[in-house]
Structure formats: structure tokens, C-alpha cells
């Protein structure tokens, strides 16, 4: 039961960029299209789950004074592994995500979950937490990407949905558009949360 | 007359020619309500009781501390009661209710032509016994002007500073601080005979070592030079409103800036309004106690504006009736000038020694003031005489970030109200600042002399 709760909280109650307002760097940078957001979310999820599990295993070994350094080491290793694996076997994904993969290292969600959850809880729950938060992150990024792609390009996941005469609102897929879009979603989320 | 004040963004100028108006004495009303607190400091102690017969000029309240002055009966009559009533300047104070008899009589006097041979201490004592006060919400008595150390409220501002320097400049000012107020202007044209002697007395009391200046409006240069007759150098100044404040008068005449909250004495300057100086002269020379006020009645409900001589304790209703002003259209009654005056809730409020003007306003000329957004137009910053940033300060006050306003030196605020007067958003600027000062227990700017 608790496993389920730890998993489900990441999907709405603590959905990372919207409720926790963490991990804004990839949220703003890669969500120009729904697919980009999805792949970035999946890569992050993989790293998050792996690092959560490993850190949870090592939580009694790592002295608290050097824990951040140890976490970063673990996280960075997984990120590099993901990058190399992607390059070698799924190069098209790597082409889309490109420079954003190394940025996962400094994504505060991963360090945040390691510090706030994995360092205090068992392996199973840490796995659930990592998976839940990761999937929540993926949903959020895909959602944001879909909105920006819909208005900015006129398509979702590459499929044109707007009529051919639609003049794309290109502001949405540019950097300032990401800020405005995220800001509006954050505002609406907190409005919904209030009621 | 007041209509000219509703000029858009024009600087407030001193009212012209109000001092030329005839002054009629208001007949004594049936009941006079004489407050025992008409000054800074403690309330005076009553020395009469209900049922006593009093004569005009008889002491009815005995000053209890150094800052206050005695209170005298303005008319012959019978004390009906001594009761607590609302004071026009806030709070409650004891009121001696006198039922007057018949016609208004002149006050009994004890002249002393040899007053200049007396010591300063004796003169100040006599002035205090005669109840001479300045005007304003918490008017200082004349003896406390020359001895700020003796007043606890003044002393706070001087703690930690250098000892007071000797007075090297004495400024007798015939400029009224606010636009409609015209009592000091009136003195220079209508009571010019007493001006040289009053200046001489002030020189003696302040032990001035340097120059003596008679400051007057640029429109009154000739009269002032005639009136001063060589006793003081005449300096003219424009009557643009915030510049007429005492602090800024000192700054414009001497170039010295008075530290926040301190009296002008701390920079070696003594400032005396001309009316107070003449009242003091009358007290020591002629022995006349202060029992009446020359009051300007103006405002858009009053056409034309008038000047009347009213006994202290006369309710505003009787003054308005004497001036033929209908009460119905009046929606706001202000004791004091139109900017910093105190609005009253009742026509029955009696005047005190602090009231030199009654402004009656109709509602259609009043603008709605509300907590609107500041649009950051910068008008208040441009016009602020203390060179503060009222726009930011008012926001801090509005959202109760009071630590920030102390850091931003709200104590330097002169509470002149110009920011509120020109604000296009119609924000209650002065109210914000006064409230914040009260919350933070900071010294308020009264009529600081």
C-alpha cells in the first residue's frame, strides 16, 4: 500500500515542475515539442530510478558530510551511462536530446529526491518514489511540450492538427514562450489547488 | 478663493489678499466650551468649579508642565460644568463650559511698560501665565521654542547630538505654512505698529548673536519693510506651499538642514511666527491674555472667504452662522489649513488656540481617495520637499513592511501632504505615513518649531 502511495504522489500531488517547481532547466529547454519532452522525461526517469535505488542501498554507508559529493558521483555516472548507451544504440533519440542529457546531472529533481527521499527510505520505496516522480516529470514535460508544439508549430507529436492555413504562433516554441507557458500553467495549477 | 487651488498639478500658492479682508468680532455664543488642553504637554488643571462666576481674562486652567500654558476665561459668565469632551485635535479633554452674559467685553489687562528691563526668565514666565501659544495640532508654547531641552518630546530628537549651539539667526516669519491660512500675513499689514517691538522682544528672548530676519511673502515686501523699520532684515520668499514649511523656510534662508525630528535650535536658528511674537508682546507689555483667535473662514462652501475674531471656545457652528454660511452643503469641516488641517465630525466643535482657519468643503469637490495601485508616475518624488521616495514608502506602508520604511528614513518626512495632493492614483499617502509612524512609535511631525 505504501509502495503505491509513494508511486502515485509523483503523478499529481508532487508532480515535479508544476508542484515542486524543480528541474526547470530541462522543462524550459527541451519542451519545444511533445516528443522531446517525452524522451527527456524517460531519460530522467531512468537516471532517477537507478540513482534512487543505489543511493538508498548506500544510505547507511555514506557519511552525511560527504553525501552530496557521493550522490553527484552516482548520478553523474548513470547520466554518462545513459548518454553513451543512447549514442550507441538509439542514436536518433540522442540527436533530439543532444546536449540536454549531460544536464540531467544538475537536474535538481534527482539530487532533491536523493536527498529528501532515498537517503531516508528503503530500497523498495525509493524505487517507487523515483518511478513515480520520474513518470510525473515525463507527463509534465510531454504536456508542456504538447501545448507549445500545438500553438507554436500546429502539430502534436509531429502530426499536424491545426488546419493548413494556421500561422504558427512561434513565440510559444521560443525560450520566452517556455517561460510564459510554464508560468501560466503554474498559476492555473495553484488556482486549482486552492479550490 | 479656494477654487483656484483646484488647479491641476499647479503648485499651491499662498492665498492672495485674504489679509486685506475686514475682521469682524463674532458675538459671544450662549455657551463657550473652553478646552483645558490647547497645547502640547499635559492638560491644564481647572482652578474654577461649577457655579463659579468668572471674569474675562481670569485664569481658569493652571499649566501643569513646562510645555503647556495657562487657560483663561474668554468672557464674563458663569461656569456651568466641567466635563470631558472630544478635543478638536484628537482624544478627550476637560472642557470648562461657561454660560456667557450679554455683550462681549474687553479683557482686563495689567500693563507693564517697563518689560524690557525684566530678565528673560521673568518674561517667559509671564508669557506662559498669559497663555500665549502657536497654532497647529499640538502647538508649542513660546517658552518651549527657546528651550527645547526642557520639553521631553523635543529632547528625544536631541539625544546623542551635539549640545545646542547659540542662536545666531532669528527668523520671525510672516509666512503662513498653508495656502488658505493668512494670520501671519494679516499681522504684517494690519498690526504693523507692533512688529518692531515684537521683533525686539524676540531678539531679547532668543539671545540672538547674529542676524535677525523677517521673512515675508514676495507680495508683501513693501509692507514688511515698513513694518520692520530696521529692526530686522526683510527677506522675501515665494508662497509656494511645501516651501513655506518652517523646516524649509530655515533651509531656504540659511542653507541649514534640520535633522529629522529635531528643532531648528539644533542648527542655531530660532523660528517664531509673527502672530505668536505679537501675542507674546501683548502679553508682557499690555498684560492681555490670549482669549480669542483671528480665524480665516474659507473653502468652496464659503463665498467669499472671511476673517473673523472669535473667542476661544466658540463652536464652529456659531462662527459659520455669523459668516452666513449654510451648513447643509458642507460635507467636510477642517480646523487648520486645507492640507494638514484636522477634519471635524461635528459643527459643535469649539475652536482652541491651535485653530487659525476653518475650511468648509462641499462633497462634489472632494475626490475619492482609495487604495489604488501606485502607477509609479514619479510626481511625488519630484515634489517631495524632504527628497524622499514617497511612492516606494507608501507601498511599504500599504503592505506593512515597516522595517523598510525606517531604513528609508521616513523620519525625515515633513508630513506636508504634497504627495497625496498630486497623486494621480489618489492614494492616501499622508495617511499611510502617519499610520506607519504611529505603528513604529516614531516621532510625528507636529508644528515643530
Amino acid at each position: 500500500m505504501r509502495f503505491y502511495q509513494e508511486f502515485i504522489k509523483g503523478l499529481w500531488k508532487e508532480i515535479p515542475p508544476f508542484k515542486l517547481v524543480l528541474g526547470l532547466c530541462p522543462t524550459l529547454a527541451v519542451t519545444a515539442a511533445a516528443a522531446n519532452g517525452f524522451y527527456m522525461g524517460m531519460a530522467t526517469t531512468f537516471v532517477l530510478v537507478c540513482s534512487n535505488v543505489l543511493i538508498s542501498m548506500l544510505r547507511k554507508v555514506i557519511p552525511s558530510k560527504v553525501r552530496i559529493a557521493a550522490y553527484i558521483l552516482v548520478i553523474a555516472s548513470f547520466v554518462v551511462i545513459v548518454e553513451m548507451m543512447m549514442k550507441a544504440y538509439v542514436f536518433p533519440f540522442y540527436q533530439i536530446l543532444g546536449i540536454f542529457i549531460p544536464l540531467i546531472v544538475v537536474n535538481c529533481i534527482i539530487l532533491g529526491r536523493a536527498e529528501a527521499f532515498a537517503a531516508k527510505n528503503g530500497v523498495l520505496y525509493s524505487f517507487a518514489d523515483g518511478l513515480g516522480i520520474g513518470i510525473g516529470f515525463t507527463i509534465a514535460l510531454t504536456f508542456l511540450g504538447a501545448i507549445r508544439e500545438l500553438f507554436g508549430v500546429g502539430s502534436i507529436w509531429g502530426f499536424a492538427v491545426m488546419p493548413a492555413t494556421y500561422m504558427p504562433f512561434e513565440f510559444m516554441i521560443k525560450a520566452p514562450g517556455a517561460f510564459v507557458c510554464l508560468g501560466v500553467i503554474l498559476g492555473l495549477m495553484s488556482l486549482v489547488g486552492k479550490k | 478663493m479656494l477654487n483656484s487651488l483646484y488647479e491641476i498639478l499647479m503648485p499651491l500658492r499662498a492665498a492672495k489678499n485674504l489679509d486685506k479682508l475686514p475682521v469682524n468680532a463674532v458675538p459671544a455664543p450662549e455657551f463657550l466650551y473652553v478646552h483645558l488642553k490647547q497645547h502640547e504637554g499635559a492638560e491644564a488643571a481647572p482652578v474654577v468649579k461649577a457655579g463659579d462666576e468668572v471674569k474675562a481674562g481670569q485664569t481658569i486652567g493652571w499649566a501643569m508642565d513646562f510645555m503647556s500654558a495657562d487657560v483663561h476665561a474668554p468672557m464674563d459668565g458663569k461656569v456651568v460644568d466641567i466635563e470631558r469632551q472630544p478635543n478638536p485635535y484628537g482624544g478627550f479633554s476637560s472642557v470648562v463650559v461657561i454660560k456667557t452674559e450679554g455683550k462681549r467685553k474687553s479683557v482686563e489687562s495689567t500693563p507693564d511698560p517697563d518689560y524690557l528691563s525684566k530678565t528673560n526668565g521673568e518674561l517667559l514666565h509671564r508669557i506662559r501665565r498669559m497663555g500665549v501659544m502657536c497654532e497647529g495640532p499640538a502647538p508649542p508654547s513660546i517658552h518651549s521654542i527657546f528651550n527645547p531641552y526642557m520639553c521631553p518630546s523635543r529632547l528625544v530628537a536631541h539625544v546623542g547630538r551635539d549640545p545646542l549651539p547659540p542662536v545666531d539667526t532669528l527668523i520671525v516669519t510672516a509666512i503662513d505654512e498653508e495656502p488658505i491660512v493668512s494670520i501671519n500675513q494679516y499681522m504684517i499689514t494690519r498690526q504693523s505698529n507692533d512688529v518692531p517691538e515684537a521683533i525686539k522682544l524676540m531678539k531679547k528672548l532668543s539671545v540672538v548673536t547674529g542676524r535677525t530676519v523677517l521673512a515675508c511673502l514676495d507680495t508683501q515686501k513693501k509692507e514688511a519693510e515698513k513694518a520692520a523699520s530696521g529692526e530686522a532684515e526683510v527677506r522675501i520668499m515665494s508662497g509656494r506651499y511645501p516651501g513655506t514649511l518652517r523646516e524649509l523656510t530655515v533651509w531656504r534662508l540659511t542653507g541649514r538642514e534640520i535633522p529629522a525630528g529635531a528643532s531648528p535650535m539644533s542648527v542655531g536658528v530660532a523660528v517664531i511666527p509673527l502672530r505668536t511674537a505679537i501675542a507674546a508682546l501683548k502679553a508682557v507689555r499690555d498684560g492681555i491674555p490670549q482669549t480669542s483667535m483671528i480665524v480665516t473662514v474659507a473653502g468652496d462652501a464659503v463665498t467669499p472667504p472671511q476673517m473673523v475674531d472669535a473667542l476661544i471656545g466658540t463652536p464652529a457652528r456659531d462662527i459659520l452662522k455669523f459668516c452666513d454660511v449654510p451648513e447643509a452643503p458642507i460635507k467636510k469641516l477642517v480646523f487648520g489649513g486645507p492640507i494638514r488641517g484636522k477634519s471635524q465630525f461635528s459643527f459643535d466643535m469649539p475652536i482652541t488656540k491651535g485653530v487659525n482657519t476653518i475650511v468648509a468643503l462641499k462633497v462634489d469637490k472632494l475626490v475619492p481617495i482609495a487604495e489604488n495601485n501606485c502607477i509609479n508616475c514619479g510626481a511625488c518624488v519630484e515634489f517631495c520637499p524632504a527628497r524622499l521616495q514617497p511612492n516606494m514608502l507608501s507601498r511599504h506602508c500599504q503592505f506593512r513592511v515597516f522595517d523598510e520604511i525606517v531604513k528609508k528614513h521616513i523620519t525625515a518626512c515633513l508630513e506636508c501632504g504634497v504627495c497625496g495632493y498630486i497623486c494621480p492614483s489618489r492614494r492616501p499617502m499622508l495617511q499611510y505615513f502617519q499610520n506607519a509612524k504611529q505603528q513604529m512609535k516614531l516621532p510625528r511631525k507636529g508644528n515643530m518649531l
Partner: protein
Amino acid sequence: MKSSGLIVDVGPHIHGGNSIARTMHNQIIALIPAIAVGVYMFGAGAIRAIAVAVAAAVVFEYLMLRALKKPASALADGSAALTGLLLVLMLPADVPWWVIVVGVGASIVIGKMLFGGLGAYPFNPVIVGWVILLLSWPGLINKWPRPNHMQWGGIAESLPAQTTIEIMKRYGVQMSDQFSILDSFLGFQPGGIGSVAGLALVIGGVFLIARNIISWQVPVGFIAGIFIFGGIYHAVDPTMYASPLFHLVSGTTLFCIFFLAPEHTTSPNTKWGKILFGLCCAALTIVIRTHGTHANGSARFAILLMNLLVPFFDRIRPPILGLPKKSKEAAADA
């Protein structure tokens, strides 16, 4: 003692009569000459665009006021109409109506109301709306119709309708020497509906300064800056850099000087701060025009960037009255 039903409050008991509505209405009045010239130059298309913009602005403002639970009476102050008007005057007269609606919506919703409405926004909402349009449909809002009555002795006829700035950027400064400064000043140049007519804008600006709606410091600082920095470039190499007069009359420079830069909320408050703000805007304008890619919107980008620095300009102010000498540094910090 009985209350007589009088109003009791704190002074000042009289008011100078200034109001937000007066400020905004006067700015709209000041735009009338520019609008008139725009209509004369670009015909009915200009009227259509202005009508769409003002209507859209009022509707968006009303919706946002309702959504934010603010009194709808705030509409009457005219600030929404002014925002819409200022935005559309920078656009070409034949721009599609939906571009105007989106631009005005972006101005009002994103640039203005989401920050808290009048007085709270850090950036000039008009420029925010324009930048969003520029990022989205640069092709649509940089395609200028040729003014109806334009006569440019030969040279311009062979060129597509570009603003004089674009022509200078693309074909070199020699080309820009062939335009008559006077013609440009009178409005005979391609450009936005209201931003072409220099003379009309100057009339409006002088009106605003005379009515005390805007202070003279920002425009004067801006114009002085154009002459100083443009003059320096021009003096260094007249064959490479255009003259300051050219910079002044072309593009939206004069529009920015009198209507966008002195906008109350996004400009400094203190006298010297305002002058410096104008100078810095001018310097950035010249630099962006000379070295940057978005030469056409240089003045607007300059203002947008300088809006960020307004709190710092506000710190340039005289010492507070009566403050002891030793704490004057502390006053500067506050």
C-alpha cells in the same frame, strides 16, 4: 456632542485634480496627430487596424479584470485603450486582424495584467506585445505597405517597401543618404501606422510635456543621446555610419522617445535617473542599430532592456533632507 455627518479623514483635504484617467486620455489625445498622418498615408486599412486594436484591448482588459476580481470600473481610465493604440501604431497598416488581436492580448494579459495591472509591470507591456508578435510572425509585421503619397525620387521605387533603417542596414549608409530627412520627418516613409510621422509625434510629445503628463527629462535625454552617440559614430566614419538626424527621424525612434520610453511605470522617477535612462536608451538604440540584427526594432529593444535597470536609476537621487552627514552613504544604500 452630536455627530453632524461630516467626513472625517486625514489630509490633504483638497486634491490637485490629477488622475490616471486624465493621464491616459491626454496621451490618447497626443496621439491624434500621428493617427491622422497614419490614416492619410495608409488609408482605410489604418482605421480598421486601430479600431480592431482598441476594441480588442478593452475586451481583454475587461476579461482580465473579471478574472482577477478587480472592479471593472478601472476600464474607464483608458489605460487599456492606450496600450492597444500604442501597439497598433507600430504595426503595418495591412497587418491581418488576428495578428493585432493576438498582439494586444499578449500586451494586456501577459505584459500587464498578469503582473498585477497598471503600475506593477516591470516591462512596457506595449513592447512586450510587440516582441511576442516579432518572435511569432516576423514576416507579417515587418512587411510594410508603401505610403500612399510617397515620392522618393526614383531610388525607392525599385526597392521593396522597407523601412529606411532596413535599407540602410542592407544596402549601406550611402543609400540612406539619398532619403530626404524632411520627407521622413513628415511621414513619407514605409513603417508602422503611427510611427512614421515624426512631426506629428513631436507635436504630441510637446503637448504631453506642456500638460505635465510626462516629464521632459526622458525625451530630452533620449534625443541628446541619439545626437551624442550617433554623432560619435558618424564623426568617426561618415561613410560607414548614418547621421544622428537620420537615426532620429527613421524607424520608431521618435515614437519611442515620446510615448514608450517615458511610460510612467517603467521609467525612473528621479530627475537625473530619467536623464540617464534616456541617454542609455539612446546609446543602446544606436549600438543595436549599428551592430545588431534587429535594427528595425532597436529603440524598442533598448527600452525593454533599460526597463530592467529602472530600479537602479531610481537610486540616483539627492540626499534626504536633514540627514546627518555620516549616514548619507546609508541613505544611498536604502
